[in-house]
């Protein structure tokens, strides 16, 4: 690990549920970050596969926390509660960070203390077995670099969770969207980096693919609740 920038401890929280297939790639993308100091917390949501065995190969370079399956939001919150850093970042076990992801974001937060969080852009990518699907989205808006309002793109000061609360554990799909909506409603300060520093993997087991209708309904319900709150505000 080289270090171009150093400063505050960044807690890197990796929620995992039966993620053994891609977990090593995800963790390697953390351990090759150009920023330090970091701590790595793998928060397990009751995996029944070999995720733990993958994590254990990293020895004491990471902490493994586990809970009975309670959903992605509860798993992220497990990591947040255990984190020791003043800055928190999240990486889903099937996604990747580019090597300078933390360095770029920490630099922004160091330069601008009034900022509460920083996100970057994200780019979807498909495995070699999904070339047809990748082709379908080549010219689609969702196939381009997208401003990353998702947990994997986020670097956030710990104090924000005291201000707007944790990820809503009754949500299984839209918890990050709901959290960013609350962030915006609280008029907190966010910087969006134009660079793509996160790669979001499309594969056959994406949660929103496996449970598509439930996830669609949940996203619509979060938007409906937001609209309702707005209308109730004088």
């Amino acid at each position: 690990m080289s270090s171009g920038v150093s400063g505050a401890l960044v807690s890197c929280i990796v929620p995992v549920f039966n993620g053994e297939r891609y977990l090593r790639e995800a963790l390697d993308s953390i351990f090759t970050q150009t920023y330090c100091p970091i701590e790595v917390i793998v928060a397990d949501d009751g995996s029944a596969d070999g995720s733990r065995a993958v994590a254990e190969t990293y020895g004491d370079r990471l902490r493994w926390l586990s809970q009975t399956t309670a959903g992605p939001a509860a798993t992220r919150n497990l990591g947040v509660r255990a984190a020791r850093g003043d800055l928190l970042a999240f990486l889903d076990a099937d996604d990747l960070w580019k090597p300078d992801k933390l360095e770029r974001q920490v630099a922004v937060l160091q330069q601008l203390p009034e900022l509460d969080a920083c996100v970057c852009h994200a780019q979807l990518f498909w495995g070699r077995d999904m070339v047809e699907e990748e082709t379908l989205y080549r010219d689609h808006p969702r196939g381009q670099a997208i401003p990353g309002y998702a947990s994997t793109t986020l670097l956030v000061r710990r104090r924000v969770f005291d201000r707007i609360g944790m990820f809503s554990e009754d949500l299984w799909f839209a918890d990050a969207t709901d959290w960013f909506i609350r962030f915006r409603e609280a008029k907190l300060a966010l910087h969006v980096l134009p660079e793509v520093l996160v790669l979001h993997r499309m594969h056959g087991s994406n949660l929103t693919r496996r449970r598509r209708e439930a996830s669609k309904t949940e996203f619509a319900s979060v938007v409906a609740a937001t609209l309702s709150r707005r209308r109730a505000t004088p």
Partner: protein
Amino acid sequence: MNLNSSGYYRSNGDRLASTVIDGDAVLVDLATGVYYSLDGTAGTVWQMIENGRTVEEIAQRLAALYDTTPAQALSDVESLVLRLLKEDLIVEAAPSEPAAPEPLPDHRSPYRTPTLEMYTDMSDLLALDPPMPGLFANNEKK
């Protein structure tokens, strides 16, 4: 864009996330992050579209439920359906089974012209995390 008042339409479900709460519908365009609300009478129209009713059937039912004339209801429903088509929120559909007769309320409710409200303020927030549109129309895993 032509409207067939005897034709059938359905929500463009593969592209949309939608919910109906207390009779009001909220639709999210998964491709753009734009979202829409259909309140009151418009929510009633949306639910009848989803239930496979024609424009004419919807207008008749609207005039039975609300304090308006059949002609006004038909004109308003046609306008709303055209707008929904223009926004790609509905598409033409195959004919449905005839509707079972539905009971009439004791009193008709006050009528407001059904309208579609469009919001773009959360397009950025809804650009990355929601499910991808168009991928899984025929192969969703249970």
